[in-house]
């Protein structure tokens, strides 16, 4: 009997270890971070809540199923900013790989976007969804990334009714699927070197 108990403990430990290294699974649900009432303006790379009111939280297998409905995939992961202090000879060729078919708005997950940027963002997403606010939209970046939570929140507030938030982001996606290089949407190219840019 004790052997059996021991064995099942070993199995349990192994399974949890396996889950821990797999951001694919809904491991985010252990988060105790409360949902802020408004957009998050604190450190962008930190623990996120388990929920997003008005939106559904999904994991990678759920996204794989959802793809049949051709959702709009919105990546708000940060763009690499050319560092200060690089010698001129450096070959600087950043690439951003995302879920195939995604549109990329680097920096659009900031909680402190100027009004005109918000307007442009919502207008572009309106175009991409054909003005249909019940069209499925998926927001993501990487794990522990408030940007994807924020843009989900913005879309819920703007009246979108099928918002899905993928906390596992590209990191979780690429555990099981390949990624494609994407270019930033017009108007969202990263700022040139110098000065402080948005927090990663």
């Amino acid at each position, binding site marked *: 009997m004790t052997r*059996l108990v021991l064995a099942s403990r070993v199995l349990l430990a192994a399974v949890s270890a396996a889950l821990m290294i797999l951001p694919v699974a809904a491991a985010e649900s252990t988060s105790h971070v409360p949902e802020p009432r408004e957009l998050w303006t604190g450190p962008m790379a930190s623990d996120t809540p388990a929920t997003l009111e008005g939106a559904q939280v999904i994991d990678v297998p759920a996204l794989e199923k959802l793809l049949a409905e051709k959702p709009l995939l919105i990546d708000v992961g940060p763009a*690499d900013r050319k*560092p200060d202090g690089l010698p001129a000879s450096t070959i600087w060729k950043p690439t951003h790989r995302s879920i195939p078919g995604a549109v990329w708005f680097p920096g659009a997950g900031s909680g402190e976007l100027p009004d005109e940027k918000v307007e442009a963002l919502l207008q572009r997403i309106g175009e991409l969804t054909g003005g249909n606010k019940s069209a499925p939209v998926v927001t993501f970046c990487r794990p522990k990334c408030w940007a994807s939570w924020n843009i989900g929140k913005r879309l819920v507030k703007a009246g979108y009714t099928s918002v899905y938030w993928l906390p596992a982001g590209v990191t979780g996606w690429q555990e099981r699927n390949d990624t494609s290089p994407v270019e930033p949407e017009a108007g969202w190219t990263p700022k040139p070197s110098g000065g*402080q840019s948005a927090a990663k």
Partner: protein
Amino acid sequence: MKLLRSLVIAAVFTTAYPAALLAGVSMIDGSEPERQARWEELSEYIFGDRPIEAGGDLITIEAPTRAQDPALVPITVKVLKKDEVQAIHLVIDDNPSPYAARIKFGPAGDPSEIKLRVRVNDYTNIHAVAETADGRLYQTRAFVKASGGCSAPIGVSDAEALKGVGQMKMKFDDNAKTATLMIRHPNFSGMQMNQVTRLYTPARYLDEIKVSYGDKTVFEIKGDISLSSDPVIGFSYNPSDESEFTVRAVDTKGERWEETFAAPARIN
């Protein structure tokens, strides 16, 4: 007992191959057309229109399939025909600054094996290219799963990270033909954010490291932000009766360091 054994086996299997339990197991291995296109773009940028042949019987690269620490990924490049190779180029395709290192070997150098630690920013191919004395190029690659290595914060203040900068150690192996060089340097990538000030620390890394044995060059490395902090470089050399190794290093801020090390006694 049988039950226990099978449960343990199942547990071990689950731990080792978690993805195998799921549908849609990832078969990404770096051979995808878009990844090949990236390599073609980069190699043209670095090598121009020089042809690059498959290097299977000349050069190999070893890297972890999944790196434990993306800021510290160990890479071993081995050259099988050492007399033909005069330089090795290391390219981390999907890093924003992909040309990680160029290593040129001198008369005291032996390109048989070189070990480096690198930063990997996203799932990527890492290419090692051997350049022969007559200018021919041969490539091989490894696909590495790691992300965030270039922007991973150092965890201490910049001043703390720079403490003892330039200090060196050299460890010689008993065989008197391989050694390991360690240099203290944060190798700031310029993509690391100070977690307190939320400002990016400007790039500052070891630009050139030259190791000589007597008055002959062993190797020269041209570095990049993709090399990990506190570089640890394993290398081979041609034994001789010279008594001293000299290491000269310069970083992108122009600071220079030089250190000498007594060569180990030769075993005949």
